[in-house]
């Protein structure tokens, strides 16, 4: 999908949006499935996509599969197979759009909700379930897949991403199409954390090749966005000296185009960009959450009308890029993937307790070794007993 998007920079005649008025949002596909040829951000950069039919269908397939896997994980949690699950429902376009915009050499730093990006990186979707089941903290190799570990401590990964991007500069790996870039994911709530703001300072000062991808899903657990900011989040970037852009996060085409352009600017030495993907968390924060306590049903309905999958489906249908069989096939594919996931989760083995002493240090530690030994002896003392 390498040639999918083009972005050209021309000074816009439109002036920069004032802080108080409703900000502009880059959009290439309206909620009712209409294509917008191209859109500009407030810096005058113009975005469009130029996908093949197959690519359009691929994006649709990705989103459907990702949503279906997510639903399966949620069901598995309800059935006691997972301890907890953080659903991405509603954020498929932001995640698939940005995830597919990454080039193979790019590195991603996710939160705990980036199952869609993980999928785009080619990681087996069973992987994150280990964390939520409680058998490990996520089993993929972060460097092999260029997708780092999930980070639960809000905002911490943005500094790691920044450091990694500084390393790209040091390695001379910016400039040209084979330059490398980094994408750091975080939520609207995370923008209040010191770490996230420090990562803005660092990235700006060192001109790091990084894209900050903030999924503003309107909530941090129960807290609406007004608890984190009184101006649109994308504007935060300007004060730190780099570009901030709001994109329709329920529009997979715009999410792709803006992310691709920002990554390419980063890899060519033009420094960081903050992308605010304006979207909505359709489900609960996690399966432990009860959103009825803090939001009204009609809000969800409003956003359902902007559903990222439906709108691409409408477009495909109206453009006659697909026939009805296509939807059936995709749904079946998704269902099969979900079924496959379910089967494997049930057989995920519990870790051997003694393995909890492994990997505390690369070079080991006599203290840990001694505790492991005692534990083993102690455990052995129960063997054969009723314990």
């Amino acid at each position, binding site marked *: 999908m390498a040639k999918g998007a083009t972005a050209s920079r021309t000074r816009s005649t439109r002036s920069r949006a004032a802080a108080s008025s409703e900000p502009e949002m880059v959009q290439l596909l309206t909620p009712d499935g209409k294509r917008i040829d191209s859109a500009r951000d407030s810096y005058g950069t113009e975005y469009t996509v130029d996908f093949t039919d197959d690519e359009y269908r691929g994006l649709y397939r990705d989103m459907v599969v990702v949503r279906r896997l997510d639903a399966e994980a949620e069901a598995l949690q309800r059935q006691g197979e997972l*301890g907890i699950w953080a659903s991405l429902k509603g954020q498929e376009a932001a995640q698939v759009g940005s995830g597919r915009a990454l080039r193979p050499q790019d590195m991603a730093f996710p939160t705990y909700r980036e199952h869609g990006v993980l999928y785009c990186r080619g990681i087996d979707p069973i992987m994150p379930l280990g*964390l939520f089941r409680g058998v490990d903290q996520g089993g993929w190799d972060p460097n092999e897949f260029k997708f780092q570990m999930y980070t639960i*401590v809000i905002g911490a990964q943005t500094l790691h991403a920044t450091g990694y991007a500084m390393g790209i500069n040091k390695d001379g790996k910016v400039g040209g199409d084979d330059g490398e870039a980094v994408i750091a994911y975080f939520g609207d709530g995370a923008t209040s*954390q010191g770490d996230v703001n420090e990562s803005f300072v660092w990235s700006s000062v060192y001109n790091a090749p990084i894209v900050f991808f903030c999924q503003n899903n309107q909530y941090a*657990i129960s807290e609406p966005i007004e608890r984190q900011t009184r101006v649109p989040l994308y504007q935060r970037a300007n004060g730190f000296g780099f570009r901030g852009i709001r994109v329709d996060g329920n529009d997979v085409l715009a999410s792709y185009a803006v992310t691709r352009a920002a990554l390419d600017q980063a890899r060519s030495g033009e420094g960081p960009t903050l992308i605010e993907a304006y979207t909505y968390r359709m489900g609960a924060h996690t399966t*432990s959450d009860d959103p009825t306590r803090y939001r009204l049903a009609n809000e969800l309905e409003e956003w359902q009308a902007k559903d990222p999958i439906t709108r691409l489906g409408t477009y495909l249908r109206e453009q006659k890029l697909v026939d009805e069989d296509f939807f059936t096939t995709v749904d079946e594919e998704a269902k099969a993937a979900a079924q496959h996931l379910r089967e494997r989760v049930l057989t995920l083995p519990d870790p051997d*307790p003694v393995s*909890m002493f492994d990997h505390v240090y690369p070079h080991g530690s006599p203290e*840990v070794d001694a505790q492991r030994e005692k*534990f083993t002896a102690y455990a052995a003392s129960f063997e054969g007993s009723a314990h």
Partner: protein
Amino acid sequence: MATENLTLGKALTMGLRKAMEDDPKVLIMGEDVGKLGGVFRITDGLQKDFGEERVIDTPLAESGIVGTAIGLAIRGYRPVCEIQFDGFVYPAYDQIVAQVAKMHYRSQGKVRLPIVIRIPYGGGIGAVEHHSESPEPYFIHTAGLKVVTCASPLDAYWMTQQAIASDDPIIFLEPKRRYWEKGDVDTSAPASSAYPLHASRVARPGTDATLVAYGPMVKVALDAATAAEEDGRDLEVIDLRTLSPLDLTPVYESVRRTGRCVVVHEAPQTLGTGAEIASRVTEECFYSLESPVLRVTGFDIPYPAARVEEEYLPDLDRVLDAVDRSFGW
């Protein structure tokens, strides 16, 4: 008389409510403490009844929560900060150990910060990483902070109110795995009837060995004592309640009688709370000890994946094993 059978969580809620009724300067602040009532519902209903000015949903940043609480305290308020989970207190570490802990000392008593920082702590609930930690040793070591923890609904109800009424900055540790366990609380009793905040308590008298525990581990220690009866051993269990200052007088008194002592906690062993207790008990009861003070604790590893946490956490068997070792020394 209004004795109710309450969960520990509910008792905390009622204690907070009482404190807010008693003093209009008391504020609740933290992430999701408002409409949601906190992820554990400990502040449930408080915003509805006391308003958004007193029950404050804050931006998502722990340093900000504690740092602004300091300013509010300087202004004359009594902020009660909620840290959502143990593992998320570290971003606030500077504000807690370098600011909250030191302000009274630095100002030679001119600035008081009556702040309570509530932290649900400990494991055993099958959670993902960062949600099951026991950070108390970090705070116990920090001069200028007081640290308490409750093990029963009754203590939850009173200690909450006492901590909020105190002018000392207090880290209030809530044993989250015990939130749903029940006990009797007489909510109509006068405050003067409550056991003092900074005092430990004999939870079960005994003669043969002394078990020292706090928070979530008190139940484990009590269960172990019950099980030990079968072996003909009569164990004394002391619930510390206050971790800073430590109130070890009842422990010394006990160990002088029993000659044996086992300390139980979830935090890792190295420089865990047990290290201090063992050191002091050994110094105070040197000639009474039949065997060294033994520690049953979390291991010196990061908190492991939930599916093995039962093996990580001290349980009845590990406590009894230590008691055996103590007797076999």
